[in-house]
């Protein structure tokens, strides 16, 4: 592909969709990732919100086009509109609500059957700040502006091994979700949009797993039929122009 080298400088656009039960914190995860902030009262998402954020890998820059969908069940039938052509999905659940994992599983099932077959799906258990016991020490300075109510335990990772009283809030054991994710072939992590725990890592891990070469390849060869699997052409304005110049091999 002639334009692969070209594209390595340019950010590669990746469409990512967030799905999950209402009030698990989808919008907050996006807010944390895009603006590195946490806002307690945000208007509920009507239909879907659209944001973009770059994500830097060692050799390449990705530009996430993030579709943050409404969580209320009755908006479910609109979801296909947003996850069509998505190359990545983050299915969010709330570790303090067992039912939200069930809903997440059903989203995963739906994505695996209805969405782009190459979609990278990550399962993310949000609100670990409420169940300090299981949080892993943070590796990145993602949470520059922690909320003042942020759990102390997250700041002192040493304590995190022995579960405390707040652990009782947890309804979804990490092992259980992780085992499910492994079985279903998903990325898995536990995060906190409030403290910023694991957010950046989540999106970086997804970025690593996205078959970028594949996206570029399918975009480069815009000939019909080559990439019915990943209908990527609707991604980049510039690349689309290049695609027109590329030969129909």
């Amino acid at each position: 592909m002639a334009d692969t080298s070209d594209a390595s400088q340019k950010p590669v656009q990746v469409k990512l969709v967030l799905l999950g039960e209402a009030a698990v914190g989808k919008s907050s995860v996006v807010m944390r990732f895009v603006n590195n902030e946490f806002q307690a009262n945000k208007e509920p998402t009507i239909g879907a919100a659209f944001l973009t954020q770059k994500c830097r890998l060692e050799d390449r820059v990705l530009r996430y086009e993030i579709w943050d969908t409404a969580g209320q069940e009755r908006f479910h039938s609109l979801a296909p509109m947003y996850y069509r052509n998505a190359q990545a999905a983050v299915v969010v659940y709330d570790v303090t609500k067992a039912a939200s994992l069930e809903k997440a599983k059903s989203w995963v099932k739906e994505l695996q059957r209805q969405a782009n077959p190459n979609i990278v799906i990550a399962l993310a258990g949000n609100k670990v700040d409420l169940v300090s016991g299981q949080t892993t020490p943070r590796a990145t300075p993602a949470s520059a502006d922690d909320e003042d109510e942020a759990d102390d335990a997250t700041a002192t990772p040493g304590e995190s091994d022995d579960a405390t009283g707040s652990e009782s809030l947890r309804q979804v054991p990490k092992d259980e979700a992780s085992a499910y994710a492994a079985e279903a072939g998903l990325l898995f992590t536990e995060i906190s949009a409030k403290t910023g725990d694991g957010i950046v890592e989540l999106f970086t891990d997804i970025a690593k797993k996205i078959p970028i070469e594949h996206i570029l390849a399918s975009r480069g060869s815009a000939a019909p039929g080559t990439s019915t699997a990943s209908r990527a052409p609707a991604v980049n304005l510039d690349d689309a122009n290049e695609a027109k110049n590329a030969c129909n091999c």
Partner: protein
Amino acid sequence: MATISTHLRNFKEPTKEQAQRHFFGLPTDPSKEDVGTTDHKFEINAVLMLNEDQEDSYAGKMHLLPPYLCFISLDRRSVKVSIPLASIRRVERVNHPRAVGVFQLGLTLWHGMKLTIQLTSLRPTADQFCAHLRDALKIQLDLGRMRQVKAFVKTCYSEVLIPVSNPEADNEREDGSIMTDNGEVDGNPLAQTSYHGGLGLTFKFPGDAKKLREGSKLKLWTTYLRAHGRNLTLLRYPHCTRLVQVGLPNRLRGELWETLSGSIFLRFGNPGVYENILASNAGRTSTSTEEIEKDLNRSLPEYPAYQDERGIDTLRRVLTAYSWKNPELGYCQAMNILTAALLIYMSEEQAFWLLEVLCDRLLPGYYSPSMYGTLLDQRVFEALVQRCLPMIHDHFQEVDVQLSVASLPWFLSLYINSMPMIFAFRIVDCFFCMGPKVLFQVGLAILKINGEKLLTVQDDGGFISLMREYFASLGDSAHPKSSDPRSRAIIKFQELLLVAFREFSVINDEMIDSERRRYRGDIIHGIESFAKRSAIRNLSTFGRFTKDQVGLVYDVLFKALCLSPPPPVVMTKRIISGTEEENERPETRIELQTFRLFLADIATWARDEYLVSNGFQERVDRRIAEHEFIDRLFFFWDTNHTGALSFQDLLNGLDGIMFSDLMSSIEWFFVLHDKNKDGWLTKDEVLTLSESLLFIFRAEVGDAYLGTVSRFMTNAFEYGDALQPENGQPAPVTPQTEVSANSPSANPEVASNQPYLNKATFRMVVLADPLLEAFFDVDLPRSFQLLPVEDTTIRRNQPGLGVLGNAVGGFFSSFVTDDNKKIFNSFVDDMGKAIGKHQVWPSRCLLTLHLRQFPRSLSAPQSTNTSAILPSKNLCAKQLVTFHESKGAAKRQPRAGARHRPLLHLRRHR
């Protein structure tokens, strides 16, 4: 997503009267007290004059729609009047000195305006109209409605704006025969008026009052309201619409919203209802209230009132009250934003009723659980874009951009969360005044204004970003480079409204209605097939079925649910005690009644078919068979003992039967009849089992199966007796015991409810008879057939409606919709009866136990017009072929099946 909803199937086009009431903004369902008054409905051509101003007269139509009097000018646009009869204080015949023979009525309204109505119809019609008007007014008087007006208008801000300074009006009230309660004299109207207002009164209205030219707007409205009435008696003249288009003044906005939308009539007609709903549901919670709670802090959070408990409480009360009022709708995100916006300008009660009008009439189906209204209007919008802006539409198609990614929130939140509030409210003003078409007009104008840029958009994201930029710049000058300062002063929002109303004036409500009709079927189909896919995806196992077969089972289940929806009690329970998002995910479960319908479409023996011939057409009517055997199956499949079956239960049950071989068929049939599951049938149970067999065989012709069952019984009791344990120990079942069965039983005394026949013996008895063996091996599993459900059979009105009543009342208006086959049938049946050609024959005879005495007569040939029998015969023959061909068991003439029918159920109607 385990609930299966069939409510979309019950959609009915509004009747002509409902459409008329919609048009005039009247409540669709007259309150209980008003039911009788609808007899006085009347229409008449008339010319309307205000205050005897000949210059300003409009020809049109007067509609008496008790308890309202309405007028619409001929162009259906200029003048529109809807006033409650209760606000009419005096009606008199005007004798015009110069124009003899002109029939004029003078109406004096509560606010003192005098309307002159010249009835231009023929004299008898005019007289009739007057009589009806008089009677309708009398009813209102008797109901005491006239008294309520006075107290009610005090809740309106316009009464403060235009104080009752008109002593004439006061006098007239006293003189008027209608009004009686004039005890107190209005000294200072301000002191007595406690008008309804919104949070804006306390927390300030959004926007800069000076910039919005609050003062001059208020002045203009004061003039208008003084001349043309206000609140209950507002007359909409052309000037009114123009005033609305420049934006309503903040203080009047709430009242004008409710007046223009007609929700004021609901508030007037339902005093105290809002408070009652709140009081009677105090302390209760539901899924909706939980969902509301989550969103309270995120509804227009930038407005000061919603950073305050007072504002939040107000919002909570209105939303929860509405969720109790309309539990089926409950609460949908976006309603919080909308309601929060309304509450800035209106009181809770006003907002509550306006919400009702919104959900019910202006945005039908937008917030329903399936959101079909939203999806439908998105489809309509797309069609309008295709028609009006074909270039944009084609470009979007080409680059695969979906319009609704951006436009859906526009419609769902009336642009409130898309553009700056002050602008959105002006669109809302026009929306309440001119109806839903405004949303489309504005949407089209947005696209048109941004047309050039939109043609460069390459993906959904680019589209959304462009729209976001545009909305953020609405306050900027539309022509910043213009040399003319006046044109520089025009902001983009003004340009938007101008384009919307000038260039898209062709978009009217009729067009939107007809587009909605066109796409409704598609949308419903889409939603239902989406629901089907989800339901199938959420199954934990398909058993041995293929995906297509599972789909067929779903279709049959869906059809059964359409015909026999779950009882309303279950429905409300489901909605209130936790829907989708609760831990215990509720499932649609069918009860016995629905199960019978379900099974009748799958198992051949679970239905009876009748051939109906009425001289015009012949058709096969299916009726549901009822038998204990079916009920048994229901409880057999209900493995969780919940008294209802889910889709998964049904699938598991069918899986256990349809793929059975000889041994497993015998097994489940045995277990089905073994009530206490101890592995033994009692004598009673053996009899029940035989009855089940007879029930299944009832449609088979001739004695072969009858004989089989009777042999079965003989054998069962013989073997059973023979195998009775000598010492309380069941005898081993071996071929030897079968031989020894010939010897007289050693222990015949077994009570009818004691364990008697075990599985092995049962199996032996079955295998002893080739016909039974064939039945369990092939016929029983095969009697369950998954056939595609005809879509048209589903689209019916709710069952339980008197079919005949339907046919008489609604035949002509509703025949065009495809869901009225049934009505059509009964209609032609009626005609057939009228001409004496209506006949009904069972296409399969009822062979149950008692028929054993009359086997011969059943198969006795009867001679009637054989041509009419044909379809029925075929059906029977098919049945028989499945049974007989499979095993070559004792064959009877299949044709005989058709012959016996006249004997049983031939009915001849005069």
